[in-house]
């Protein structure tokens, strides 16, 4: 078969296939959004489209509504996990999102299904990538109204990520499938989504050349601790006001967002290394990440 027709058929087949495991999500006034049946009993969507905590409805392809409950939210990455009684909507076929490359042809799908075609324009995940929230695929395609929470699929119809227009203005993004799976696993294991807690306030600082040379670091910025909450993991680990954190949990820290990137829900209970510059010498500390209490 000729190439153009083959590509066209492949794209249509991908929509067919992926259309089987998406649902409409009714969790805000007027405009519904899209959800992905990620694992049996768990539907994921974009957190910014879930404006209610109760009375959430999932709309199947036949138009029937199925009730769902909110199982967890991660506002930092704009992901909400909904729990649903087993229903006859297929479960998403998840691709290895680390295989996503700039220039790959992808489709975004909305409930219906409706489709949009484009390419991956950047793969972002480096320290300091706070402008879009880190660990995302940015897309050159149109996210039409109601697409948020829907899947980004490859030409084989496998899900590479969850699309959202709610994280950065003027940017169409997808949360990589690996990140979504990690959060869903966490909710399935604990029954809720824990918020990891360190207990510091920080600000970005420029590292003087003298310190960079002493530490043998290439990074030009780090964060300085401006507050340590009493009885927090940071306090127990010995962090003090004025400490300059250069790395946390093995990850380079260029700005405060890099701390948040490390503080994923699955880090709760883990012992993590903190490398700081204090006074005129480097120090290696350890903290045990806690779970933020509901009232905090």
């Amino acid at each position, binding site marked *: 078969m*000729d*190439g*153009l*027709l083959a*590509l*066209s*058929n492949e*794209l*249509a*087949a*991908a*929509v*067919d296939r992926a*259309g089987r495991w998406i649902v409409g999500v009714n969790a805000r006034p007027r405009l519904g959004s899209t959800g992905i049946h990620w694992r049996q009993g768990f539907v994921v969507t974009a957190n910014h489209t879930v404006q209610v905590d109760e009375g959430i409805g999932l709309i199947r392809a036949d138009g029937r509504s199925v009730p769902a409950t909110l199982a967890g939210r991660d506002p930092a990455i704009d992901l909400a996990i909904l729990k649903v009684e087993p229903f006859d909507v297929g479960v998403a076929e998840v691709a290895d999102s680390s295989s996503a490359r700039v220039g790959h042809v992808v*489709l975004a799908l909305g409930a*219906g*299904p*409706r*489709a*949009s*075609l484009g390419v991956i324009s950047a793969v972002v995940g480096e320290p300091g990538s706070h402008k879009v929230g880190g660990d995302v695929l940015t897309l050159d*395609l*149109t996210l*039409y*109204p109601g697409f948020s929470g829907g899947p980004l699929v490859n030409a084989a119809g496998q899900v590479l990520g969850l699309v959202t227009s709610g994280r950065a203005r003027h940017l169409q993004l997808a949360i990589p499938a690996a990140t979504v799976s990690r959060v869903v696993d966490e909710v399935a294991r604990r029954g809720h989504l824990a918020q990891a807690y360190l207990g510091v306030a920080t600000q970005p600082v420029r590292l003087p050349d003298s310190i960079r040379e002493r530490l043998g670091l290439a990074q030009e910025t780090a964060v300085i601790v401006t507050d340590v909450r009493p009885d927090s993991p940071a306090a127990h680990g010995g962090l003090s006001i004025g400490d300059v954190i250069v790395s946390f949990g093995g990850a380079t820290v260029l700005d405060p967002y890099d701390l948040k990137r490390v503080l994923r829900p699955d880090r709760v209970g883990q012992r993590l290394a903190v490398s700081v510059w204090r006074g005129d010498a480097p120090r290696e500390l350890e903290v045990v990440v806690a779970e933020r209490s509901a009232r905090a």
Partner: protein
Amino acid sequence: MDLSGVAADLRRITVEIRDQHGSLGAGALWPAGHVVTNAHVARSPRLALGLVDGRRLDGRLVARDEALDLAILRIAGAGIGPTTPFDETPPRIGSLVIAVGHPFGLRSAVTVGIVHALGPLVRGGRAWIQADLRLGPGNSGGPIADAGGRIVGLSAMVMSGLGLAIPMRDVLGFVRGAGIVE
């Protein structure tokens, strides 16, 4: 056929239509010396037509339906050349579509996208081919083809960034109703 082949065929049958007020639209050559277009493009009984090869022709309005937004014209003179096959089966969601028209006056411009959805935009509305496809003023009435080069619809308008096309089934129904056999 590759994309440039489909585009070249489509450009050959895409007509430029100028009404007495000077506004520019598009149309598709139809067998037996006819042109199909939108009613909102064909707003006068006589229209100036142009082909991609530079020929200028006169068109006379044969039938026009405001509600369907469709019109058919007859070209004065013969020997227009071959037309392109069409397909009244709705294209699949996700499949490629290729449009030719004159967006913002840019003659015979080609744009490519996919079928976004099929059906009405609002409950009870008319059925469209909704396309994730860049269209602009001047695309109206121009053909939209599938990856096999068959015409599947006529561009009609842009709504919330989507290109809306009148499905070929509606176009055929209108043309047959006007007593023209393809």
